[in-house]
């Protein structure tokens, strides 16, 4: 601490240490807050108007003509409890899970980025899903899918956390009625 530059260096070094500790404290405190002091958000989903078409899906790298499913849904969710002081934004998505061989399938049908607490109350009516579902086998065979709301909490400082809502909705892929089948 004898000369100006020694003091500058020592001061900046200590400030860096304190900032690191501060960031660790913010990250740990917000994780604790999220795990123990945040009520589970209420979610209700209902999927309807599931329709199956035959053809090339409207997007993707799949050039095969096959069955694809589009749908509309109603969604009510209050995600505002997830916003604490360390939440930058939420990535919210609806995931449809249905059985398959050798692994079960999980497909995202709708997603949204929520950046502020006042936008976190979702109330969607008769909304068309953003993405269609197409299966790797090309056929759905009237399997049953469960749709649940899942989200990532993206913090300013710390770890990205994954979670999902309690409510889920089930639907069965209807049989293909299109005349152009085969």
């Amino acid at each position, binding site marked *: *601490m*004898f*000369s*100006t*530059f020694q*003091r*500058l260096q*020592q*001061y*900046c070094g*200590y*400030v860096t240490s*304190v*900032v690191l*500790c*501060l960031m660790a*404290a*913010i990250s740990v*405190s917000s994780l604790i807050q999220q795990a123990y002091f945040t009520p589970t958000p209420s979610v209700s989903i209902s999927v309807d108007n599931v329709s199956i078409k035959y053809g090339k899906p409207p997007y993707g790298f799949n050039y095969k003509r096959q069955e694809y499913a589009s749908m509309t849904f109603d969604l009510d969710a209050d995600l505002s409890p997830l916003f*604490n*002081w*360390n939440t930058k934004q939420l990535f919210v998505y609806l995931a449809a899970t249905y059985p398959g061989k050798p692994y079960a399938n999980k497909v995202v049908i709708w997603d949204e980025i929520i950046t502020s607490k006042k936008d976190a109350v979702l109330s969607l009516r008769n909304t068309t899903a953003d993405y269609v579902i197409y299966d790797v086998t090309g056929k759905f065979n009237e399997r049953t899918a469960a749709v649940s709301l899942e989200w990532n909490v993206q913090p*300013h*400082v710390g770890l990205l956390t994954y979670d999902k809502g309690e409510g889920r909705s089930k639907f069965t892929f209807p049989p293909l009625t299109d005349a152009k089948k085969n």
Partner: protein
Amino acid sequence: MSSHLQTIILEGSIDLVGQQLADSITSYYVSFAGIIGFLSGFISQDIKLTVYICSVLFTIGLFVVVFPWPFYKRHPLRFLKHEKTN
């Protein structure tokens, strides 16, 4: 003039008691500023407040610690007088 300024500001030497004082000010003040920033942000649930408070307090501390203020020079070393040997 320029060499005088260089000695005062750029070299900025302070005495031993002043060095100890600068060291304690650094550790106590910066830790205190970090705690204040954390608590204010946590209570108001706003991380921007933490960023603003910490940056302002850290900048104030930088000016207090780095420059060779007179209160760092109140205990100058007294050297013994040179003895004539012949």
